[in-house]
């Protein structure tokens, strides 16, 4: 006797819904994505390596990952502070701030890109005051970082906020009554509890930043070796009809995002374990 693979259920529709789900997933996501893998098999490893080790490609990968790391760190630090302010304190305009935090999710990236350029270009809103000080932001890697901070802003706030809201005040009261001062209670009791959520938000912001294109290309200036991001290199290769070159860079990026996805998943499992809440 074999055990049925699917437990019997009185609810109808299993075959239809799962069948449609798998077919649609296959057609829209899996088959097209496998095209990348198929295309790389056209290349020998030597050819693949030749593309990946081009100085311009190496510089773009370094820039994409480096700028994303810095941007995600900035978002980690300030995002935690903003989440703390939104959960623990009352201040005028709090509701509006809370609503607008999600703006980078909803605002098209091209719009963010031209707006940031208008602010940081040398005759821009902020740029005109920084230019005399010798600080250039637009058309430099710093500008890229600013764009990546913008698009990653909601992640840390939105992962830390619910954990902080659910946090039992009694834990802090216990810490205080056992003689901890406020700083000790925050850094030794509260922070360890929200750390997994903070790291999850950081990793999500980082992953999003690495692949980002629209908000960056306007402010980046796109100078070879200086301010060209990896997604732009893929587009440059495509415009030269160098499909294998574009695919090689895509494979490297897909591989690294896949590792990031695994890290995010285990961080979320850690958050769930530490706080007892599902994510």
């Amino acid at each position, binding site marked *: 006797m074999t055990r049925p693979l*699917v437990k019997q*259920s009185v*609810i*109808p*529709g*299993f075959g239809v*819904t*799962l069948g449609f*789900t798998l077919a*649609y*997933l296959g057609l*829209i*996501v899996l088959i*097209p*994505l496998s*095209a*990348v893998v*198929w*295309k790389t098999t056209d290349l020998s490893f030597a050819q693949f390596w030749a593309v990946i080790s081009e100085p311009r490609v190496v510089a773009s990968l370094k820039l994409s990952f480096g700028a994303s790391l810095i941007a995600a760190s900035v978002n980690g630090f300030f995002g935690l502070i*903003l989440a703390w*302010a939104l959960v623990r*304190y009352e201040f005028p305009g709090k509701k509006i*701030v809370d*609503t*607008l*935090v999600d*703006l980078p999710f*909803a*605002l*098209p*990236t*091209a*719009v963010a890109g*031209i*707006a*940031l350029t*208008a*602010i940081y270009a040398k005759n821009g809103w902020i740029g005109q005051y920084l230019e005399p000080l010798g600080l250039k932001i637009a058309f430099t890697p710093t500008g890229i970082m600013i764009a990546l901070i*913008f698009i990653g802003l909601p992640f840390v706030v939105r992962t830390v906020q619910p954990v902080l809201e659910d946090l039992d005040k009694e834990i802090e*009261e216990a810490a*205080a009554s056992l003689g901890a001062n*406020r700083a000790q*209670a925050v850094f030794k009791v509260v922070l360890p509890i929200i750390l997994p959520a903070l790291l999850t938000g950081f990793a999500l912001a980082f*992953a999003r930043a690495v*692949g*980002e*294109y*629209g908000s960056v290309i306007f402010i980046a200036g796109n100078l070879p070796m200086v301010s060209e991001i990896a*997604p732009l290199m*893929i*587009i440059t290769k*495509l415009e030269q*009809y160098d*499909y294998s070159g574009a695919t090689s860079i*895509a494979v490297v*990026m*897909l591989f690294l*995002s896949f590792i990031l*996805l695994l890290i995010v*998943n285990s961080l979320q499992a850690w958050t769930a374990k530490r706080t007892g809440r599902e994510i």
Partner: protein
Amino acid sequence: MAGGIATALGAKSIRGNQRINNATTESPWVRRLIIGTGLFYFTIFLLLPLGAVFVEAFRKGVDAYLAALVEPDAMSAIKLTLITALVSVPLNLVFGVSAAWAITKFNFPGKRFLITLIDLPFSVSPVIAGLIFVLVFGAQGWFGSWFLDNDIKIIFAVPGILLATIFVTFPFVARELIPLMEAQGKEEEEAAIVLGARGWQVFRYVTLPNILWGVIYGVVLCNARAMGEFGAVSVVSGHIRGETNSLPLHVEILYNEYNFAAAFAVASLLAVLALLTLLIKTYVEWKAAQVNAQHKED
């Protein structure tokens, strides 16, 4: 006498509260510093760019603003963006509901893995999302020569834009509904079946009312991304003015032509769309919290 005791007790409890409050919150100046830092970060990185869109859009006056929006290329970009959303959102809605139904109402092996696969498009760079469709349907792609022989254009044409948009907006509805329907369980549906309801009736009268706000939430977010997608669409569109130019791509073209006021005018349309999205999202969250509270009271 009694009043005296109450006052004494009251006074004591107030003092007690104060002590606990001091132990579990920060001193006023630390509090101000944290709020100030949070708001500074929020203003510089988020509020300022939003404001810049609208100020720059009206820099050359209301007439120039309106002219940029009614100009034929802008109108055709608006049309293409609406078509894109009208095709991709309903498809992903049907997919999301059906995936959530299969995943939450039944037990089968590989469920976790399936959920991870559904989330996959979120972790793929938009540029790569465009690239994969060029590799499948482009002139040198898998089916490229067949489509070429039959004179069907997918890449650098509207179908390519639709496919790329469907890909990047793929998970929105599903990932909203799966946790929601998971939490609601399947007892209500099972009861309806036992009472004699047919499959479709169960969905229409039992499940749908329970997940309606979740559906709206997912659709609104899916729509915002469908209308605003830039990277993926940019790779497959070919940037043909009046034909394969969506609103975000039109913003780019105007901007690269140094037609800044017009670029920001079109961008402001998209910014209004984003603000509307956030407004509906907040309303739905508020509504869902209300429904939740009511359930708890029942």
